[in-house]
C-alpha cells in the first residue's frame, strides 16, 4: 500500500528546472527521507506534494488524490511541520493548539498532544515566552493534532541542540509506531540514518540515489583500510602482498575496498603473523551516509 506515488514530476521556474523528472513512492507506515543541498529541489517537491505548487509535468498521487484538487477530507488526513514557525505570541500554547484542533474532524485531545511532544507543563504559557526549541515542538504538535495519516516534516530539527534533537526523534519514532507515514527533509545525515526507512538523495532537481540507508552505504561507499607503513617493507611489496593497490598519504597507507575487504584483511593479518610485523594505527573505516551523500551529489557535477 502506497501513500505517495510520484512519476516524472517536473517543475520549472522560468528557465530554471527546479525538479527534473522525479519519480518515487512512499509506502504506508514508513518514514521517507528527501536529502539534498539547498536548492536541490526538496522543498519544491514537498510543496507539490502538499498542493502549494502546480507541477509542470508528471503526476502526483497523495493518499490516492491529486493534491492540486484536494478535498477537505484529504486535508483532514494531512499534517504539516514547517521549517519556520512563528505563532501569535499573545495566545497560550493550549489556545493555539485548540484553535487548530477545531479544524479537524477527529482531532487528538489537546493535552494528550502536548504530552506527546513534551510541552504539557507549558500548556498555559504564552507562545511568545517559549524558547526556540519549545516553539518547534508547538510546530510538531500542530502537525499531529489532527491525527494525520501522512505527515510532512520540512527540516524539522534545524536549530535544535543535540538533546532536543534526540527527544524529537523519539517523538517521530513514536508516531511511526502508531502508524503515521512521513516524508522528511533534513540536512542532518545522522537524522536521516536514524529515522528514515528509505531515502532519496536529490541533486539539481534529480534523484541521484534512492534506497535504504544501509543499501545506499554498501552500494555507494567503499570501506577504507589504513595503517602506518611498516619500516621493513616498501609500498610496492605491500601492494603485491595484499593484492590491491595501496596509496601512501600522510604517512599512512590507505586502500578503498569493496567486496574484497575480508580477503585483503586475511592476507594482511596472515602476513603480519608469519613475519612478526606490527601494523600500527590499523583502522577499518565504514563509510557513512554523509560519504554517500557527498559522493552522490558530487557525481552529477
Amino acid at each position: 500500500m502506497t501513500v505517495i506515488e510520484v512519476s516524472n514530476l517536473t517543475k520549472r521556474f522560468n528557465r530554471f528546472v527546479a525538479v527534473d523528472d522525479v519519480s518515487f513512492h512512499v509506502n504506508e507506515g514508513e518514514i521517507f527521507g528527501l536529502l539534498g543541498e539547498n536548492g536541490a529541489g526538496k522543498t519544491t517537491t514537498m510543496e507539490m506534494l502538499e498542493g502549494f505548487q502546480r507541477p509542470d509535468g508528471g503526476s502526483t498521487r497523495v493518499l490516492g488524490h491529486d493534491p492540486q484538487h484536494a478535498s477537505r477530507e484529504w486535508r483532514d488526513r494531512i499534517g504539516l511541520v514547517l521549517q519556520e514557525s512563528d505563532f501569535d505570541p499573545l495566545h497560550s500554547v493550549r489556545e493555539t493548539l485548540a484553535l487548530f484542533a477545531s479544524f479537524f474532524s477527529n482531532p487528538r485531545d489537546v493535552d494528550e498532544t502536548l504530552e506527546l511532544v513534551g510541552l504539557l507543563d507549558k500548556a498555559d504559557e504564552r507562545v511568545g515566552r517559549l524558547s526556540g526549541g519549545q516553539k518547534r515542538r508547538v510546530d510538531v504538535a500542530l502537525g499531529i493534532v489532527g491525527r494525520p495519516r501522512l505527515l510532512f516534516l520540512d527540516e524539522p530539527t534545524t536549530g535544535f541542540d543535540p538533546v532536543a534533537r534526540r527527544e524529537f526523534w523519539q517523538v517521530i519514532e513514536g508516531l511511526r509506531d502508531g502508524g503515521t507515514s512521513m516524508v522528511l527533509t533534513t540536512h542532518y545525515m545522522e537524522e536521516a540514518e536514524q529515522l528514515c526507512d528509505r531515502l532519496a538523495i536529490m541533486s539539481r532537481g534529480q534523484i541521484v540515489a534512492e534506497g535504504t540507508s544501509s543499501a545506499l552505504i554498501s552500494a555507494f561507499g567503499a570501506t577504507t583500510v589504513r595503517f602506518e607503513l611498516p619500516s621493513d617493507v616498501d609500498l610496492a611489496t605491500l601492494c603485491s602482498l595484499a593484492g590491491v593497490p595501496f596509496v601512501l598519504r600522510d604517512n599512512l597507507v590507505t586502500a578503498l575496498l569493496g567486496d574484497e575487504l575480508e580477503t585483503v584483511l586475511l592476507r594482511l593479518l596472515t602476513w603480519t603473523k608469519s613475519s612478526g610485523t606490527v601494523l600500527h594505527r590499523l583502522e577499518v573505516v565504514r563509510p557513512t551516509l554523509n560519504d554517500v551523500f557527498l559522493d552522490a551529489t558530487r557525481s552529477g557535477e
Partner: protein
Amino acid sequence: MRFARLSLSLAMYNLRAYLRSVRTVALGVIMPVGLLVILSWVFAHQGTIAAAAGYPISAIAFYAGGLTAYGLMLGTFTGVMVAIVSAREAGWLKRFRVSPMPPGSYLTGQIVFNVMISMGLVIVMMGIASLVYGLHLRLIALAAMFCYTMLGVFCFTAIALVITRLVTTPEMGSSVGPFVTITLSFTSGVFLPPDLMPHWLVSLSNFLPLEPLAQSMQTALAASSGTGIMYRPFVVLGIWGVVSFVVARWTFTWQPLRR
C-alpha cells in the same frame, strides 16, 4: 454550520489576542477618541460646520461621525493587512491552507472580528459624543451607524486583502496602513471641513471609500427627522468591496513572499 462555527472561533481567537495587546487597543480606540476631544475643542467655537452634505451640521455630529469612520478604516484596513501579512510570513496561512478549514472561514473570521471591534468603537464614540458633548443620539441613527459599520468593514477588509500582495513585512503594513488612512482622511471631510479643501480634491474623494462613509455617518448623526440613511455609500463602498474581492481572488497568496 461548521463554516459558521469555525469562522466564529477564528474571530474569537483574534479578539482574544486583540484584547491582550495594549498597543492595538490603544491604536484602535484612543486615536479616534483623542482626535474627537481635540478637534471638537478646537472647532467648538464654530458651532456648525458646512459638511459635504450641502447644509451645515453641528461640529460634534461632524467629528463624531467622521472620526468614527476614520477609526473604523484605520482599525480594519491596517488591522487586516498587518494580521494577514504577519500570518502569511510566519507560515500560519500556509498551515491554514493545508488544514481542512475552509478558506472562506478565515476571511469571514477576519470580517466578524473587525465588525466586533468596530461596533465597540461606535459604542465608545457615540457614548462620549452624547454624554460629554451633548449629541442628541436617536435610536435610528445608532442603527444606521451599525449598518454603515458593517459596510465599511466589508469594504476595507477587501481593499486590505488586495494590498497584502504588495506588503512584504508586518512592519511595512504598520506604516502603509496609517499613511494611506491619514492621507485619505484629509481629503474626505474627517479632520477638516470639506469647504477648506480644493473643489477638485473633494470631487475626487467622492469616489474613494472613506468620504461616502464619513459623510453618511455624519448625516445620520445630524439628521433630526427621518432615517438619515443614504444610498451613496452602499454604491461606492459596495463597488470598492466587490471589485477588491474579485481582484484578491487572483492576487491573494497563502505562501510567504520572503524566501
